[in-house]
């Protein structure tokens, strides 16, 4: 697309249940634009001050212990490298199955997150621990739609998604077309999410969970983040996710706070709960706990649930394990006392 779609009320976009319910039958570019531009604006200074205030909460003793376990349960343990091999994925899965060999009470992360072609390997390595869409084990999440840039034809993106779902992916982490969004072509972004959601459909009629990555580091302004979040929800996303982890800045506390405000507003409006996933750059327990505070104080404790909040992270898990060991034993160990993956 080289220019925004001409504004025409008759140009209907692909149907999407939420958008239809909220906006009525008219899902034209004009209707979408008017809707998104009518959302409340964001004052950057105020948002950042609010986010900083979450960081001043003092989470100690029993609260800290509970928080650390909650963090682990919310992690999407991730490897997204061109150099990923079957061995690397097996090793990641092993870490998810036994995060801390010295303490069997350690909870497991929510999911392992890999590239689409590694889904089969991850499923195989998980064995009986794989949730297989039944929500009682570890999920396999796959990035799709020409992750991380999203610069491919829609056909390629959809096939990428279908392949991952066919291989067993329980969750699809798609990227939005940031170029189209910045062109003001909200309809194209909307359509692609709707179609990707459709591609998440399994043969039995159920859907793989769809996480929509906004890549907030490329959207830059908070107003854009609010619109993109809202648009992704309208189009059928189950989760909104900050970043691919390949662009700086990745997840930040202000951006995540804003996205939490969006899902809180969506619940207020429709009663439906959408998940939020900050990804990239959260590597310490201390930072992760700030996010939990932001979740609980923005959306309420109901959101402290892996179905509604995730961390996309790789090195975070080990820092949490170190802190957990410290709380259990009363002394700090060191990086050699947790397994690298």
């Amino acid at each position, binding site marked *: 697309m080289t220019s925004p779609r001409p504004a025409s009320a008759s140009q209907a976009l692909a149907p999407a249940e939420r958008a239809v319910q909220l906006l009525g039958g008219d899902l034209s570019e004009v209707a979408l634009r008017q809707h998104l531009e009518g959302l409340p604006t*964001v004052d950057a200074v*105020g948002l950042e001050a609010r986010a900083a205030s979450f960081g001043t*909460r*003092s*989470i*100690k003793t029993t609260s800290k212990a*509970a*928080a650390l376990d909650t963090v682990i349960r919310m992690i999407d343990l991730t490897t997204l490298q061109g150099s990923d091999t079957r061995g690397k994925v097996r090793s990641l899965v092993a870490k998810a199955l036994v995060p801390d060999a010295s303490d069997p009470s350690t909870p497991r992360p929510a999911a392992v997150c890999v590239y689409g072609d590694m889904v089969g390997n991850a499923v195989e390595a998980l064995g009986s621990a794989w949730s297989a869409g039944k929500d009682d084990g570890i999920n396999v999440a796959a990035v799709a739609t020409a992750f991380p840039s999203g610069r491919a034809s829609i056909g390629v993106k959809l096939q990428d998604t279908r392949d991952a779902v066919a291989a067993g992916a329980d969750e699809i982490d798609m990227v939005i077309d940031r170029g189209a969004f910045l062109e003001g072509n909200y309809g194209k972004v909307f359509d692609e999410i709707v179609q990707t959601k459709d591609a998440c459909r399994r043969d039995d009629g159920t859907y793989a969970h769809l996480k929509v990555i906004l890549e907030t580091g490329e959207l830059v302004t908070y107003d854009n983040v609010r619109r993109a979040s809202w648009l992704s929800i309208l189009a059928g996303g189950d989760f909104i996710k900050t970043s691919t982890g390949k662009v700086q800045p990745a997840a930040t506390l202000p951006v995540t706070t804003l996205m939490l405000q969006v899902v809180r507003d969506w619940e207020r409006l429709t009663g439906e709960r959408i998940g939020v996933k900050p990804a990239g750059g959260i590597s310490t327990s201390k930072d992760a706990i700030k996010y939990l505070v932001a979740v609980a*104080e923005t959306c309420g404790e109901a959101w402290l649930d892996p179905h509604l909040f995730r961390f996309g992270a790789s090195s975070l898990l080990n820092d949490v394990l170190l802190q957990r060991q410290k709380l259990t034993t009363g002394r700090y160990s060191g990086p050699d006392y947790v397994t690298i993956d």
Partner: protein
Amino acid sequence: MTFLDYAPAPESTSILGLRDEYGLFIDGEWRPGGGTSFASVSPSTERQIAMFAAADEGDVDAAVAAARKAYRTVWGPMSGRDRGKYLFRIARILQERARELAVAESLDNGKPIKETRDADVPLVAQWFFHCAGWADKLDWVGLGAGPQAHGVAAQIIPWNFPLLMLSWKIAPALAAGNTVVLKPAETTPLTAMLFADICQQAGLPAGVVNLITGAGETGSALVRHPDVDKVAFTGSTAVGREIAKALAGTSKKLTLELGGKGANIVFDDAPLDQAIEGIVNGIFFNQGQVCCAGSRLLVQENIHDAVMDRLKERMATLRLGDPLDKNTDVGAINSTAQLERITRLVDAGIAEGGEAWSAPCELPKEGYWFAPTVVTGVEASSTIAREEIFGPVLSVLTFRTPDEAIAKANNTPYGLSAGIWSDKGSRVLAVADKLRAGVVWTNTFNKFDPASPFGGYKESGYGREGGRQGMQAYLKGGK
């Protein structure tokens, strides 16, 4: 226990080395007072912190005489550069002892440690640093070359920001070359006594800063003392009026920073989530015991319900309790007298047809507490829309057009502060221009900076504190 029942995280009081009894700090020494000593209690527990001396007329006389002598012999003749050195030294000590001061202030005033640690004490140090920089640059203060100090400044401060108000008074006075006699409020004298220690630690010459404790009579004797050249008062409009009367016809200079009934105006294009934070910060910061509090919310009628829903939801997350707990958002009311006043005014508001809603929080059994409260259905004629409550109580009024918002905002005998929430820059500027308030915040509230002048219109007082204008208040034109 759920996650939001954050485990207790109390700041330890072991850092405090408090005495059982504090005297008067006059001429660089501690001495007993002539009046009957009084106790200061911690508002959150009603437990006694220490006993404090009460200064009688003889003590006031001694304090003013010490200040006069120090002005004549040491501080007046001293170069601005050297005065600045002392002030910088004090500022650094304030930073070094920040935690101790934050704990003491929270204990004595009842405000949350979060605020004393992150707002009060850092601002105190900033004020001294800022004014220290002025000490050798007085030629640029705007009064022409070689401006002169007044001499002895008598200063009376309130209980809502005890140490911060002390710094607003003492730092510019000393930078300009005055010596001071300062009286802290009788319910919050503790940090002023710690400041006396800091003056000694900094090697400040005796008599430059004199700190006398006592109640209203002590203050009255101080401002009426014939050898005082300048009076600065922060407190209620009623007392300010008495002082102005007492000083009429004398050569004493006077600045007054009095009450307020600040309007916080929310337009329908406001950044909503941030406006909610600003409303909360505007009225619940320091339990609303702030002269510039945004105690009247003027919200555009078409977003009234949306704003109220969000505001109540946010208020329900405020954590009221032990002020020394690092997670406490709302602390105790400073005194039983203040609590009674708040209760009486809210009752009047309800009797006049207002609808009160309080955040669902459990009030501790001991101490003085008032849950964050919002009163809707308030009209411009209501008592709680006109009288300063000085507590965590927000009165909500609506408006339809910018002109109506301006008219309602200005329709008060006060004129200290106002806030505007709008995404539209041109509207913000146009409205700010017409608001008769000394401070207008846009898309924020309750922000202070030593470089920015602060003060009121109308019954909120006269004179400015902070910035160049704040320095001018302690100087007169050169010879």
